């Protein structure tokens, strides 16, 4: 796998009839636009006080989610963080279910019992979104262990941020996965910041994930996380490797979040001009240009944009009209018998 430095993609990266092909490219584009529209809507709804609690958006990071999801096959499992709307949508979970959960309505993915930080859709392979930093890396190992033990061909992927590379569970999971040669892929979305602190201020190495890879006998991989094609290609290689029984990969995707960490964080801690520079390399802008370079008609692109917009509009209306969750679900599903009884 090539080690690609942080750089803008260009037409030289691929030709018209390259390995990715138009169908996959349109899928990658649609996924990115769906995430962009849904996240932007979530932000607007937050400002209208219709999204309650908190929300952590992936605006600007869409290419990572789209590229990985594009390389998955049915049955592959995703483990996400609180910044997990993008990865959930990328697996095909309906926008309405995601927005419904953010708006804490009865039509939400978990009927309001989980909230925005815990999006889960087992039927889509989304095995949960975890809000304790690092907790899900070992859990993804366990799912991969099950696949290995059962001789199943599915692969587990675990998405996390740059800040997560400094917690113990990250290191425990990487060693564990490497020693057991598990079919798991660890994806660090390096968006340069933890909540508010730059990762560089608190980390001993330049690339918080990739520069640790050698400690676990893994290849050092840093890619342009704003280029869905680059992400897709790298993901595919990692999936093939895992499926062939050749163990885990650790991939660091360089990217940037356009919005603040959560809620309405204005992200004042970022140096002037940084956001604008990254917006030049907005993954969706890049990808639109890429499609045009490949000869995709403007109308095809506009149709995708319009149909996604309609999906998000319809979902928004459905969520606004949806009832609140009924109080009787408060005590359901604490235990496997469906209830909460801790005594006789």
């Amino acid at each position, binding site marked *: 796998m090539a080690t690609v430095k942080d750089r803008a993609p260009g037409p030289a990266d691929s030709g018209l009839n390259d390995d990715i092909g138009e169908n996959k490219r349109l899928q990658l584009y649609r996924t990115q636009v769906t995430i962009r529209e849904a996240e932007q809507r979530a932000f607007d709804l937050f400002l209208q006080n219709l999204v309650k609690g908190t929300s952590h958006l992936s605006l600007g990071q869409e290419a990572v989610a789209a590229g990985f999801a594009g390389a998955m096959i049915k049955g592959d499992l995703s483990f996400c963080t609180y910044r997990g709307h993008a990865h959930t949508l990328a697996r095909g979970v309906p926008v309405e279910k995601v927005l419904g959960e953010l708006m804490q309505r009865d039509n939400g*993915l978990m009927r309001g019992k989980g909230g925005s930080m815990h999006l*889960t859709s087992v039927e889509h392979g989304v*095995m949960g979104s975890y809000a304790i930093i690092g907790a899900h890396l*070992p859990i993804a190992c366990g799912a991969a*262990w099950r696949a290995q033990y059962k001789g199943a061909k599915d692969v587990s992927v675990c998405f996390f941020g740059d800040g997560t590379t400094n917690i113990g569970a990250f290191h425990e999971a990487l060693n564990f996965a490497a020693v057991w040669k598990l079919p798991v892929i660890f994806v660090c979305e390096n968006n340069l910041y933890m909540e508010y602190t730059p990762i560089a201020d608190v980390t001993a190495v330049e690339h918080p994930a990739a520069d640790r890879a050698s400690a676990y006998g893994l290849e050092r991989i840093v890619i342009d996380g704003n280029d869905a094609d680059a992400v897709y290609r790298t993901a595919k290689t990692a999936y093939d490797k895992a499926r062939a029984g050749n163990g885990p990969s650790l991939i660091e995707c360089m990217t940037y979040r356009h919005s603040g960490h959560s809620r309405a964080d204005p992200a004042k801690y970022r140096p002037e001009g940084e956001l604008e520079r990254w917006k030049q390399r907005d993954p969706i802008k890049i990808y639109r240009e890429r499609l045009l370079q490949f000869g995709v008609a403007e109308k095809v692109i506009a149709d995708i944009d319009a149909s996604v917009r309609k999906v998000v509009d319809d979902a928004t209306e459905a969520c606004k009209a949806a009832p609140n969750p009924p109080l009787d679900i408060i005590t359901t599903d604490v235990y496997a*018998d*469906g209830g909460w009884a801790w005594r006789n």
Partner: protein
Amino acid sequence: MAELTYRDAVARGIAQEMARDPDVVFLGEDVAKAGGVFKSTVGLLEQFGPLRVRDTPISEQAIMGAAMGAAMTGLKPIAEIMFSDFFAVCFDYIANEFPKSRYMSNGQVKCPLVVRTGNGAGSRFGAQHSQSVENWCMMIPGLKVVAPSTPLDVIGLLAAAVRDPDPVIFLEHKSLYATKGEVPDGEIVDTLGTAKIVRPGKDCTIIALALMVSRALEAAEKLKAEHGVDCEVIDVRSLVPLDTQTILGSVAKTHRLFTVEENPRLCGWGAEIVSIVADEAFYDLDGPPVRITTPHIPLPAADILEDAVLPTPDRIVDTVRRSLGS
């Protein structure tokens, strides 16, 4: 029927379940080749092979997380945490992950796993290898918590725990590993959430767990022989689910309640039982419920100091006598 140690009962219980169900897998530190630091898992690697019985790095979070991921996706893992004190370094899984995933996902995620661990005092190991942490677990909705006191219960409750669809914390008492008991041949399966009246009596109820059960029984014999007090002793066995019916039924009969706990004083499991009895059976009581506990201190290492702080049969006898005025 055979006489078995509590230690060998652990291995037999695991083997019984692994032989029954190929989805049962077992992981932990030093559990496979070495047979466990308490030698409670000897022979399992030989019997079930290295794919099902796996040594792990010293990575308690990885052990717990891996068990959870495997459980979520179809296996029935048994994870060993060598000493229950180490729950503190992987407590996220106990407090946040195992017990909440089903609820937060509105029932989509399951977590049928068992965490076995060496719990409790008496080995002169000092404050970080001797704690009784059942109350750490009992306070978390979504978990089940059991602690057997005999070899027979080890097998039966372990089998029940493995077959249970919820995450179960299985607390083995380190000071019981060498104790022996009669165990019938063949498959043994018990029921979670059931307390056992291990000595019927009419004058007072003594509720104990794990190592404290034999001490309560010894005290009861002494109270009967030397003071004519007839105690009913209940091995609570399962803290969650809690068999309150057996407890309330006993108190209705004896009208007095004592709990014998190895935990430090504050928020020990006995406090919860006393509170339930006070709420629901206050007028059955002829006197205040009394908790016999370890003082609220870190456990000292020296034998003479450790022995002085754990509830003993003599302390139980004295407390009951003083309280009943007999």
